[in-house]
């Protein structure tokens, strides 16, 4: 790292605001994904002004800048693929304002998702996007990944809850998009910014909507002996015009892994379970619950249980939200895939996952946001075995390939990052990608912001693992 730049950074942020020793940098080589890349230094700004100044220094020294929240991301988004400066927002973690009347909050990007909900719970409000990582991930990270969660089905993803942003663009300009009003005139720049995975700018302040906590919530567990029956239940619920606030599915193998750890009361011999939640006004909820129960039974659910109180409800959700970790207990490493398919293709996709699992001899568990066709196969492998690692990646690629085949996409909510850049041509034509690149260049012309992400590139130099070629069963172009 350029010693002058380092000296200037320390002058700006103080000695404790900059990390550059090798033993510290080794700890910013990872995030929640299976990728690794080492930065040249890590900085901790405390204010928007710090960030503006940071851009000036980075631009002057032509050094990459990569944003980082809590580093729970699953696609290597927060890793410095081409080296440079990681900007950790962990110390910019203040809630700046809560406007009860208009149900808004203004936060710094490092505020932890569930901390915001906890801070407004006594007002009967919450921040609706609820990724399973919500107790750790930051709102800045949520904005950059446009994160969703189990309740996305009814409440939408992060972008539906962001009203305005303050950010520093790749050019070094400080901008404000959107307004606290619901619909601001002109292009929806906030919309385009949310989900840009830290490649357009670094977000320094976010105005979010706060949603009333529902008057009533009911959570139901439906137990099946066949995956088909479970998926048909999901299709029928939507067909009847019922919108549950969440509809999650776990397969039999995953159920057993979770149950052993969480003791959520999931039956060990089931083939699939659905976790369905309805919320709203008391009468509405009772009514919807009746309908949902009826549909479950019609589609041969062998048992339908309704959580009797908040404790039982929390336990069911604990089972679901800890699924990744619980499965991870079984093998040294796991690789969580993220794909989207039309709901009607669930049974076929699951069969395909089973085939892939047998082909490579790797255990694969399945957890889905069934309501919106977002599937998360969890592939277990042993990181010490190079061959297993490669096979895990191949298996994941084959599953994603199938998703695209049946009309889905390569990621539902975990982002492209440095994990799926090479898969982008599966769903986008060259024209699509060119257009995206042009948009990218408007915000980030010099390419110093989070380089080596999203767009398929010739391989960067930060990687440690050599990636195998994706095995495509059909030409990537999409008609």
């Amino acid at each position, binding site marked *: 790292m350029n010693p002058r730049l380092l000296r200037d950074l320390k002058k700006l942020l103080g000695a404790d605001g900059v990390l550059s020793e090798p033993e*510290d940098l080794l*700890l910013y080589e*990872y995030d*929640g994904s299976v990728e690794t890349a080492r930065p040249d230094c890590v900085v901790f700004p405390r204010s928007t002004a710090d960030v503006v100044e940071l851009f000036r220094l980075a631009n002057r020294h032509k050094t990459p800048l990569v944003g980082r929240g809590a580093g729970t991301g699953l696609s290597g988004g927060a890793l410095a693929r081409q080296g440079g400066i990681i900007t950790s927002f962990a110390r910019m973690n203040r809630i700046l304002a809560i406007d009860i009347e208009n149900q808004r909050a203004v936060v710094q990007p*490092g505020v932890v998702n569930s901390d915001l909900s906890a801070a407004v719970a006594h007002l009967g409000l919450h921040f609706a996007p609820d990724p399973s990582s919500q107790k*750790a991930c930051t709102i800045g990270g949520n904005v950059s990944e446009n994160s969703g969660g189990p309740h996305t089905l009814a409440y939408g993803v992060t972008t539906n809850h962001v009203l305005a942003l303050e950010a520093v663009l790749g050019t070094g300009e400080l901008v404000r998009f959107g307004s606290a009003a619901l619909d601001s005139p002109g292009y929806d720049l906030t919309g385009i910014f949310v989900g840009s995975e830290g490649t357009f700018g670094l977000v320094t302040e976010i105005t979010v909507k706060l949603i009333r906590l529902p008057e009533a919530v009911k959570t139901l567990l439906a137990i099946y002996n066949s995956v088909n029956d479970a998926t048909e239940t999901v299709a029928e619920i939507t067909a009847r015009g019922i919108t549950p606030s969440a509809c999650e599915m776990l397969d039999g193998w995953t159920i057993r892994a979770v149950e052993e750890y969480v003791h959520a009361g999931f039956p060990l011999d089931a083939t699939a379970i659905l976790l369905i939640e309805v919320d709203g006004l008391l009468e509405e909820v009772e009514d919807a619950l009746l309908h949902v129960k009826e549909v479950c039974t019609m589609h041969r659910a062998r048992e339908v249980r309704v959580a009797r109180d908040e404790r039982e409800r929390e336990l069911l959700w604990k089972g679901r939200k800890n699924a*990744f*970790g*619980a499965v*991870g207990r079984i093998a040294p490493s796991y690789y969580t895939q993220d794909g989207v398919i039309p709901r009607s293709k669930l049974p076929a996709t699951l069969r395909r996952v089973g085939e892939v699992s047998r082909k490579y001899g790797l255990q694969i568990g399945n957890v889905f946001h069934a309501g919106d066709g977002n599937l998360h196969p969890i592939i277990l492998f042993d990181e010490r075995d190079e061959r297993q690692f490669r096979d895990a990646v191949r298996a994941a690629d084959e599953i994603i390939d199938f998703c695209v085949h049946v009309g889905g996409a390569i990621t539902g909510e975990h982002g492209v990052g440095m994990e799926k850049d090479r898969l982008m041509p599966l769903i986008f034509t060259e024209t699509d990608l060119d257009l995206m690149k042009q948009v990218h260049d408007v915000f980030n012309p010099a390419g110093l912001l989070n380089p080596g992400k999203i767009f398929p590139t010739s391989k960067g130099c930060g990687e440690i693992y050599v990636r195998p070629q994706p095995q495509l069963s059909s030409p990537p172009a999409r008609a």
Partner: protein
Amino acid sequence: MPAKTVGFTAIDKPEYADYARCVHCGLCLNHCPTYRLWHQEADSPRGRIRQMELVDQGQMELGDAFVTHIDHCLDCRACETACPSGVEYGRLVEAARAQIERQYKRPLFSRIARDFVYRKLLPYPARIAAAARALRIYQRSGLAAAARSTGILKVLGLSDRERLIPRIDSRFFSSEMGQTFRAVGQRRARVAFFAGCVARVTFAELNRATIRVLQANGSEVVVPQNQVCCGALPAHAGVRDVARDLARKNLAAFPIDGFDAIITNAAGCGSTLKEYTHLLPANGSSGDHDRAMRFSAKVRDATEFLDELGLMAPLKPLLVRVTYQDSCHLAHGQKIREAPRRLIRAIPGIEFVEMQQADQCCGSAGVYNVTETKASLDLLALKMDCASETHAQAIVTANPGCILQLRAGSQIHGTGQEVLHVVELLDRAIAAPR
């Protein structure tokens, strides 16, 4: 100069099978008090585990940086509660500290102090009593007041630490050793009482209250004579040989089969007593493992035991508003959260209010408040904010270390809140006049 070392030695090291469970998901970060203070990976559970892994694989030196970050850990085990992968962090950090103890040369002063505390003092009840008597003279003779008023403590940088030093009891818990205390009414259980080491000279009254409450609820209480320190402090500091030795002495001192339970009122001791099998593993050289297993199976925290047994003694109303601070080694170490709360709520007249972040460490953490005073006081300040928000008159908790820390907090921050152990509250309700 501290020696440069790469890799761990064979015994008592963080094991691959334990650290590989960490899938670096980061879900523990926001639950870790030191991450919340400083927000850097090196002081987070995930980062500490990665550092152990790197040292084990020879990619990081077992040097100053590693030691600093492992020292900064409170061993509060909040990360274990948060971790979906079932990482047993407490076990990992204690092993890492054993490696540091063996391989890293600390500065001279620290070496002398550690040697004195862990090897020369804690293992010997008589020496603790002698030291306590000396300290009592300092505290009662006016010397302490003089030291404070002349400002000499400030000059020495000791004024904050001095507040954290426990007040020595006027009557030690010594004549009770070896005694049996009869159950009130019909005998429902026969238990052995674990009296602690420093607690015998600083928490003698708490020990007596615990015995009274147990008696009042139909337990016959025996205090085995030859028991020693549980070994928690040496084990947390990585001084494994001493901890192991103490564990063996306690296994010999407690006739396990004669009791329904072995009771402690200190969450920190309890979690070590319940994990004697970690100190005396199955593959160890001696046959102690089996006995450790039977011993640990009988250990109960006083609140856990009373909750299981069911309160029988009539309780008189206490008209106070209280809040509860989870002791880390009860909530995270032993996964006991509801029992103390149920006991508090069982007292008529009590108004119980939960504080925010009740299960965040108060900064006491064994000797942490002495070794890492600044961080400890920062955590204490956060804790006192949450505690005073509840407007509770008393903060109730379940571990002597936490009581000391919170009492200092109440003083430093002038909240005027009383700090009590759950059993002390029960004792008052049993003894309170109508």
